[in-house]
């Protein structure tokens, strides 16, 4: 293992740079140094002008997603040792989002999409807190638990070719979030989320490339979620046809 590694960072300063250009930094190599720690080293010791997001350092806050050698990954959960043999790695802001500066992507679109799927519980009859909890067996919890692990890091959007083509697509994390609530035994809000799922921007836009699940740092498997959403959407479509045939109102 050589004692340093070349990190090439795509720099972009709005108003100053026409387009991102790579800048090289040489960082001392140690086996347990993460890409995030390397960025902190660069900022403290080499170039304080470098801009990137970070906070928790433990892969739970979702701030530090960047493209690492072309792959969307968390900086805090990727280690330099992986690139030691090649002696270099390349960083740029998450794909499929506008670049705000350096490694900082503009994720507003993603935030909007989260809101679109109405990610909150809806109860047909509101139970007062004094009456205690909604019972939910471990098996019922298990049905949605995996889909509730999303840290909103946005890596799956950077991986999603459909979102890249047209960012009106709600995308993997938002559609997964919808499913998370739809599968929750306490929730009665599926019907209200169906419009978003069925819309042009909803589940049908997904072509099941599956790259979103590959890059997910929390094993949420959004591709599976989106495709279960398609099943739900189909059933919903069928039910609506049936209701229409019976002269009932569309839900």
């Amino acid at each position, binding site marked *: 293992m050589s004692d340093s590694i070349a990190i090439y960072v795509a720099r972009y*300063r*709005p*108003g*100053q740079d026409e387009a991102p250009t790579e800048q090289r930094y040489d960082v001392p190599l140690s086996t*347990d140094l993460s890409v995030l720690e390397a960025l902190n080293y660069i*900022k*403290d*010791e080499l*170039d*304080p*002008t470098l*801009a*990137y*997001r*970070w*906070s*928790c*350092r*433990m*892969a*739970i*806050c*979702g*701030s530090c997603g960047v493209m690492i050698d072309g792959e969307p990954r968390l900086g805090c*959960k990727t280690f330099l040792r992986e690139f030691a043999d090649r002696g270099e790695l390349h960083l740029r802001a998450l794909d499929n989002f506008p670049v*705000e*500066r*350096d490694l*900082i992507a503009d*994720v507003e679109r993603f*935030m909007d999409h*989260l*809101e679109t799927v*109405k*990610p*909150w*519980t809806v*109860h047909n009859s509101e*139970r007062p*807190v*004094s009456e*205690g*909890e*909604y*019972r*939910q*067996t*471990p098996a*019922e*919890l298990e049905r*949605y638990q995996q889909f*509730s*692990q999303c*840290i*909103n890091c946005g890596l799956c959007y950077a991986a999603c070719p459909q979102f890249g083509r047209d960012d009106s697509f709600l995308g993997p994390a938002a559609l997964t*979030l919808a499913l998370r*609530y739809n599968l*929750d035994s*306490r*929730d009665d809000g599926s019907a209200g989320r169906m419009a978003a799922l069925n819309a042009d921007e909803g589940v049908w836009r997904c072509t099941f490339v599956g790259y979103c699940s590959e890059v997910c740092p929390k094993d949420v498997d959004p591709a599976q979620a989106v495709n279960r959403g398609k099943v739900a959407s189909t059933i919903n479509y069928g039910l609506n046809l049936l209701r229409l045939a019976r002269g009932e109102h569309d839900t």
Partner: protein
Amino acid sequence: MRQERADIVIIGGGGAGLRAAIAAAEADPSLDIALVSKVYPMRSHTVAAEGGCAGVVQDHDSLAHHFDDTVSGGDWLCDQDVVDYFVRHATEENLRLEHWGCPWSRRPDGRVNVRAFGGMKIERTWFAADKTGFHILHTLFQTSLKFPSIRRYDELFCTDLLVADGQCGGVQGIHMATGETVALLAPAVIIATGGAARVYRYNTNGGIVTGDGMAMAYRQGVPLRDMEFVQYHPTGLPGSGILITEAARGEGGVLTNSEGYRYLQDYGLGPETPLGAPQNKTMELGPRDKVSQAFWHESQAGRTLSSPRGEAVNLDLRHLGEARINERLPFIRELARTYIDVDPVHEAIPVRPTAHYTMGGIQTDGRTATVMPGLFAVGECASVGLHGANRLGSNSLAELSVFGRVAGEEAAALARSGSTPPEAALLGEARDNAARWEALRGARGTERLADLRNAMAEAMEEGVGIQRMPGAMEKTAATLRELRERYGHLRLEDDSLAFNTEWLSAIELGFLLDVAQAMTAAALARRESRGSHQRPEDYPTRDDAGYLKHSLAHYRRADAPEVAWQDVNITRSRPGERLYGGAARAKADADAKEEAEP
């Protein structure tokens, strides 16, 4: 400078800020609520809380037990009226989170499950595996999205409170994407910016936990209370300080020293409990202050292990087995494997105490009001009087909901009736502040930001750590004074406006230095040992005659902070001896006997 108005401004989008926003929106949907954060709310550090959230649920438990555990755990420095309110409302707030969709772990019958936690006599810690904070935060964030009256200002970095005639009338910040100054005026302001453990070199906290709100209030004359009480969490990963939850011990994990010995039995927490049969308030389920202090003594005695990342003891979970670890502690397994290449199913995790939580904060009353009209504070940034000299694990997540709701309701009531101070004065102040921050952005002195930050963090570990020695404390105070001076000669390299994170870090360092000075001054002033504040060399015992009091640090600009004192509210629990393990059980038996045959 952009000017905007709201009815309520909340600074901070973590658990406390979100809960306050929802409470205010529910109290009065016509109120315009501005939720301001320097990050997207679900990045807030609530996200990293792991083990759980307290609230009495079991039939054989009682509010009195939760009260007693909290007050004795806090070494009698808790305000007992506040603890009473807290224990009475914790469970309903946990239930409300349940109704909002929080995926609490369950018992086979579908009821919410609870686990054992340090210093708690009976299991009352609700949990969502070992990502409780993460799930609470996301539940609150997602629930907040259904309220159209909550308007978010994401990535707006607050720099100052706007105050005129002694009344708070808004906040000022920097829009991070553009560098533009924003003045946000409102008759009610809630600070919910979290803690400040980033003043230490080794800590469990995210990079954003820099005491911003504490410093903003402090600079405006609002005292910081009980700042000397800083919690070292007994089990962080050496080097990084990444948190390994207390739930690891709640589930039965044990701590051993370099001789494989369960050393906690030597520090008033024994007798040793059998493997796989943890006993409440005993051994590894002792309170955090005592468990961290035991590490210090083991270290002095040379009985710690040397790991590649520094001194450590072993946290052994192997006897729990893979299935239980995967069910109850999946995140711990992921963290240990990722960050130190240890699989806790097969190997013990090396751990050491790391700075974790600020018990003190912005002084408030039991309704979250500060001494400044118009200003509230809640959560870790505040000192509502709940934690005293040592917080019990899982009380702080419950605090976010219990007092977050109070803050939201109080602010809503004030916003409906209150008036903003004269606008011209507020805006004038904002312009002056903006000029000062502009000057900082162009700072071309000689001092490097990273050097000052590192020197501060090292000094805090040296002087205001687990055990505080008089010489080291004085030295830290002097170092901080010197750093404050050097801060005036910073050199920043980046003069751009868009996402100038060097500039923002420099502002954060200013906040950190103020908070560090308050901590150090209060630690020097408290001439006793209590809870997390230990002075083994000069004042090794608790002194109720002199210091059964809250410290109040007042900002004095270039001078050292001035420390004043405030009485503790004591209702029904007179200060006594903190007993754990066998000693606590012997006392309980004796008390029961006395009651039976007086």
